[in-house]
């Protein structure tokens, strides 16, 4: 098995003013015979910004783990990775370049604005794109793509699990603090629908500039002034971390206001610390300490991880690569290098099964389905070891966890 990893582009332009032009991707040169028998996977995500820990090197490590476990089955697999800096234009350029240079699969693609943009490139070029890191449910809704799959989670699933449970627990008036781009808008929309459907009310929302906001106190005070029972955080990464920290500082929780962190990864909880984070509820589709299979996977991959335990995006990259390689072995390398829609159709026809998500499948709209879990962050005294952070509150079954096929308005779904 030849597995090559190459850092293609990994430098963040720190200042918008000093933005540098994208560097040239240098793929290792292969002979024609080698190239025809090599599957090339490109992991595109945030290597240097706010979502680095949630995606970044962890996703690469998990994809490599899948390649290593898949083993040698008559073809070579090569993996490269690059930083899209959370900018749609950088992502689109890179995707075009990669597909033109013979990359067969682009993986991860966090940040919904970039995820949607790369999804369009994949559709136009009929190449495979598996989105693990983005949240927007539009990827399998109005913007669904015959050669695309959305793997680990989405805004509908988060809204249903966290939002639904919070309303049920009596939190029926909401104010949203929303990151002002595709992801935040989708998460706010999907959650607001659940709140209203359950008889709750949305009192207002404030859209915060992304990624330039680090002080949320003003927004939190505005939210508090409308006297909601719940403040919904439709943001992610360091935005969520700063909101949680500052909400504690400004005594919001002491006044009986609940925070609904609609997208919180275990990597974020690690950063907030249990002292500040205790009692928060959040939803993930993977937790390392869920069952024997997830613990076994975590033990195997941990030595390769960058000082982090895997979250649902990292696990999703593992699971997606494993299923993709099984499909390649099934249909042959030549066919797998052909039209992306056919590869994805074959992937949809095969059931999925792996240590991270258990048995599942991929729907016609490109939605990979599996159970989702609602967790509560433990109190410091309840945590017994490193990264022992979650208590499982409830499980939503595979068929219930994601948006019903008919409601997504995906053109691939024939009514």
């Amino acid at each position: 098995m030849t597995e090559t990893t190459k850092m293609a582009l990994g430098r963040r332009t720190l200042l918008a003013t000093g933005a540098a032009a994208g560097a040239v991707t240098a793929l290792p040169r292969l002979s024609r015979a080698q190239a025809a028998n090599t599957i090339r996977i490109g992991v595109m995500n945030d290597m240097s910004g706010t979502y680095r820990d949630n995606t970044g090197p962890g996703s690469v490590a998990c994809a490599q783990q899948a390649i290593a476990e898949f083993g040698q089955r008559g073809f070579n697999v090569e993996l490269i990775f690059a930083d899209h800096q959370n900018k749609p234009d950088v992502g689109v350029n890179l995707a075009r370049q990669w597909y033109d240079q013979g990359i067969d699969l682009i993986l991860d693609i966090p940040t919904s604005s970039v995820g949607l943009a790369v999804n369009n490139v994949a559709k136009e070029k009929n190449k495979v794109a598996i989105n693990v890191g983005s949240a927007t449910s539009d990827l399998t809704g109005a913007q669904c793509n015959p050669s695309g799959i959305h793997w680990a989670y989405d805004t509908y699933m988060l809204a249903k699990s966290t939002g639904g449970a919070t309303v049920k627990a009596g939190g029926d008036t909401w104010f949203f603090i929303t990151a002002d781009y595709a992801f935040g808008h989708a998460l706010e929309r999907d959650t607001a629908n659940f709140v209203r459907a359950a008889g709750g009310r949305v009192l207002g929302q404030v859209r915060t500039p992304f990624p330039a906001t680090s002080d949320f106190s003003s927004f939190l005070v505005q939210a508090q002034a409308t006297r909601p029972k719940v403040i919904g955080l439709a943001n992610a990464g360091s935005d969520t971390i700063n909101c949680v920290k500052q909400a504690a500082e400004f005594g919001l929780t002491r006044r009986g206001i609940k925070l609904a962190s609609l997208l919180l990864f275990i990597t974020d909880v690690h950063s907030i610390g249990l002292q500040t984070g205790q009692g928060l509820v959040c939803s993930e589709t993977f937790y390392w300490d869920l069952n024997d299979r997830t613990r076994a996977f975590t033990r195997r991959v941990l030595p390769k991880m960058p000082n982090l335990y895997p979250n649902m995006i990292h696990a999703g990259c593992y699971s997606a690569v494993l299923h993709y390689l099984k499909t390649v072995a099934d249909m042959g390398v030549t066919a797998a290098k052909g039209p992306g829609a056919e590869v994805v159709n074959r992937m949809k026809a095969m059931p999925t099964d792996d240590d991270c998500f258990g048995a599942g499948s991929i729907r016609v709209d490109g939605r990979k389905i599996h159970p989702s879990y609602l967790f509560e962050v433990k109190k410091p005294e309840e945590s017994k070891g490193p990264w022992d952070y979650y208590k499982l509150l409830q499980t939503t079954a595979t068929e219930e966890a994601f948006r019903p096929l008919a409601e997504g308005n995906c053109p691939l779904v024939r009514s």
Partner: protein
Amino acid sequence: MDEIFGIPAPLLFGQLLLGLINGAFYAMLSLGLAVIFGLLNIVNMAHGAQFMMGAFAAWMLLAWGGIGYWWALLLSPLIVGTIGVILEKLFISKLYKLDHLYGLLLTFGLALIIEGVFRNEFGSSGLPYRIPAELSGAWDFGFMFMPVYRGWVVVAALVLCLTTWLLIEKTRLGAYLRAATENAALVQAFGVNVPRMVTLTYGAGVALAAIGGVLAAPIYSVNPQMGSNLIIVVFAVVVIGGMGSILGSILTGFTLGIVEGLTKVFWPEASATVIFVIMAIVLLARPAGLFGRK
């Protein structure tokens, strides 16, 4: 309840206060930049990275050495300032005779390297740093809680800014410094060690950034990109205030914090851009900045 533009008056007052707190950070950071630019003619693009190092130094002192907030407030600027002195000796001092652009590029490169090293070592999601027990808690104003710590930040920033301004404008040492920028050779002829003075000035500017970092650590997540988020805004503040004007950068820092705070109420989506709009207008009307001398 009285309302101003449809916003209840106490709430608006609260928002002004919050704006003032952010303004305190802008003022502290732009002050350091102004000192360095005014006296050394170096556009210090590494200032954000040095602010971040200040916060990280506080975290390291606590996590690795068990040394708390108050000592960190003293030690962190000393440590980071010393690193600044070394950087000045090794690199920056070679550039004084060249165009501004070289200093800008060098310090920009340094910032990228420093942030990259921290990112590789500590990841991007940040590290927790708790508010010191003496300053935890909040005043209840009825319409909002005002954390004690934020009040402390404003007071500390004001004291720091005034001290620096007095030191440079009103003391003999400050007079030497200002004279050295005008004519270094002449000041040296009077027996003043100008290169050493310049090195220490850079160190002091960096130490100011580090103090800002320590003050920020309990409020924001201590992460490698915390400085790069702020530094662009702070540069805009310096430009609006007038490059190199100490008083200008202090006043502009606080004022723009308030302007930004108000924007967060009336048009939140624009709060990240409002300062740059003001910068553009000021540059058109007064190219030297509001307090610039030229």
